[in-house]
């Protein structure tokens, strides 16, 4: 049973436009959500996070929105730049579904491609 879902395996966006990556979850015990960015042949790097008591968190070009009632979060990147081309993983914490209390449950990732 997949508790964190990223339904778009890939997304293509023109440079300068907004990229919106979506993530849905099923476990209402999740209380902290994170986005990671991964380039090929490198480890994931932490991008931005949001606590379940907030509905928005912003860091420069990156904004994460959380809709708890819909169990949905999204990552907005604006404006999109060529260096943003990578795989983005959504992750959730607090569900005790694996990795103990500090474990993360990951989605399968969305490959973002920024076109010039």
């Amino acid at each position, binding site marked *: 049973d997949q508790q964190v879902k990223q339904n778009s*395996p890939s997304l293509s966006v023109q440079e300068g436009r907004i990229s919106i990556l979506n993530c849905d979850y099923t476990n209402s015990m999740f209380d902290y959500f994170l986005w990671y960015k991964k380039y090929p042949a490198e480890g994931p790097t932490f991008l931005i996070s949001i606590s379940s008591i907030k509905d928005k968190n912003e860091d420069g070009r990156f904004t994460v929105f959380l809709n708890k009632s819909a169990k949905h979060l999204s990552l907005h990147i604006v404006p999109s730049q060529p260096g943003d081309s990578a795989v983005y993983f959504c992750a959730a914490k607090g569900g005790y579904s694996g990795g103990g209390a500090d474990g993360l449950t990951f989605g399968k990732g969305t490959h973002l491609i920024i076109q010039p």
Partner: protein
Amino acid sequence: DVKVTQSSRYLVKRTGEKVFLECVQDMDHENMFWYRQDPGLGLRLIYFSYDVKMKEKGDIPEGYSVSREKKERFSLILESASTNQTSMYLCASSQTGTYNEQFFGPGTRLTVL
């Protein structure tokens, strides 16, 4: 800056060999994790540890074991490598607490022939 290092970036082994993957973190983190990443499957947790000498199974522990003799070091062992263990292996560490992210190493691309 947190640093998580892994002993090899690329490794090629033969079926049946015993394989050791080493991970070291320098931030005194309590928790350490081993994942494998495969296309279309995301990151899957193999084993984790929340303290020295403690280990817990993750979602896909079969064919793997781990060792944590020191706080900073977490080793993944493939007792008898098989071709279906060809994958990218990622180590991560984190502090205990809700609002702490995991920090990942650069990964080891393991190929089993």
